[in-house]
């Protein structure tokens, strides 16, 4: 690593040629000799000030504020994350239909654009606010705080936060939730847990969705669960179909058990 600017061949994208089966390790800087590379540094005198502050401090503090607020109101807040199309909104619609008579629910919807998902949730019969992140690829704690202010969820209830469909960025941003729930559908590859390990590592529950389609697919459930537990050995997994309702009682049981923590 260049000790002046910190540039390095590692940590960035790597390119591997499978024909040579050897990581190419290509990177944009050409280091000709130790300490010498394609650009110059101006070495200026100045005052060095130690900072030592976590980059995500602001988000983490706001997330803790949200967490305290949820705790004070006895609200179970869940952060639902997945790639686009895994069935988050369908799972929410079905959950609302099945639980709304017995469990007070409300929803914060996160999408880059449109009110489509919020309209689906409203039709399912549940209070909902939509957050459009515009260019943003994930929800952050301050957005959830604003969403909650608009939503005004009742005490002793469940707030379901549907994050932007993305298996990378939402992993890094705490929203103040009780748990992240990663939803993977069997129409995706069983290797997703290894391809996107951060999300599966940060999750408190994995829901394997669309299992009604398994007879038509080559998806290997056992292999998927092995991969998921390589990343997160303690990860509980529920297998469901939000369309047929199979396995959903286990999900509802998990939600009810979570609510007990916040009584």
């Amino acid at each position: 690593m260049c000790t002046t600017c910190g540039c390095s061949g590692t940590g960035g994208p790597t390119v591997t040629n499978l024909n040579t089966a050897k990581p190419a390790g290509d990177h944009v800087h050409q280091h000709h000799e130790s300490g010498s590379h394609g650009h110059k540094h101006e070495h200026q005198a100045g005052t060095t000030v130690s900072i030592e502050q976590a980059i995500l401090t602001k988000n983490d503090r706001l997330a803790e504020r949200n967490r305290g607020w949820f705790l004070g109101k006895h609200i179970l807040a869940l952060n639902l994350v997945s790639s686009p199309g895994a069935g988050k909104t369908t799972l929410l619609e079905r959950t609302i239909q099945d639980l709304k008579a017995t469990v007070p629910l409300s929803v914060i919807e996160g999408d880059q654009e449109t009110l489509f998902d919020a309209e689906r949730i409203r039709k399912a019969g549940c209070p909902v606010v939509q957050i459009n992140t515009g260019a943003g690829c994930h929800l952050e704690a301050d957005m959830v705080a604003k969403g909650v202010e608009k939503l005004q969820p009742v005490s002793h209830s469940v707030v379901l936060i549907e994050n932007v469909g993305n298996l990378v960025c939402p992993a890094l941003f705490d929203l103040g939730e009780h748990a992240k729930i990663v939803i993977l559908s069997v129409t995706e590859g069983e290797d997703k847990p290894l391809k996107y390990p951060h999300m599966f590592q940060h999750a408190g529950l994995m829901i394997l969705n669309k299992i009604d389609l398994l007879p038509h697919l080559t998806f290997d459930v056992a292999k998927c669960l092995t991969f998921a537990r390589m990343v997160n050995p303690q990860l509980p997994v529920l297998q469901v179909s939000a369309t047929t309702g199979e396995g959903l009682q286990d999900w509802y049981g998990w939600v009810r058990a979570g609510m007990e923590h916040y009584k």
Partner: protein
Amino acid sequence: MHELGITQNIVAIVSERAGSRRVTRVTIVIGKLSAVCPQSIRFCFDVVSRGTLLEGAALEIEEIDGTGECRTCGTHITLEHLYGHCPCGSHDLIRLTGEELLVKEMVTA
């Protein structure tokens, strides 16, 4: 592209500490298991720092290797990815380093 938001946080933290002083150098620490791409941060830094006290400042990035400890046998191992396995066969690891995301220091003019 969460690096844009992360870079905005870096610039905000340094700006707050700089007060009215011009910043010539910023050092950040990124763990290799942190899901943050140093090259993207570098790209975003030039854009985000424009018009601030950090404009034109050099950005140093210190990268930290991933290491872990096996929960089963206690062996310390190097981690190339967020997951890995111990020579004893266990995947149950405690990550010790590699997830850092810190603003370490700045140099002011």
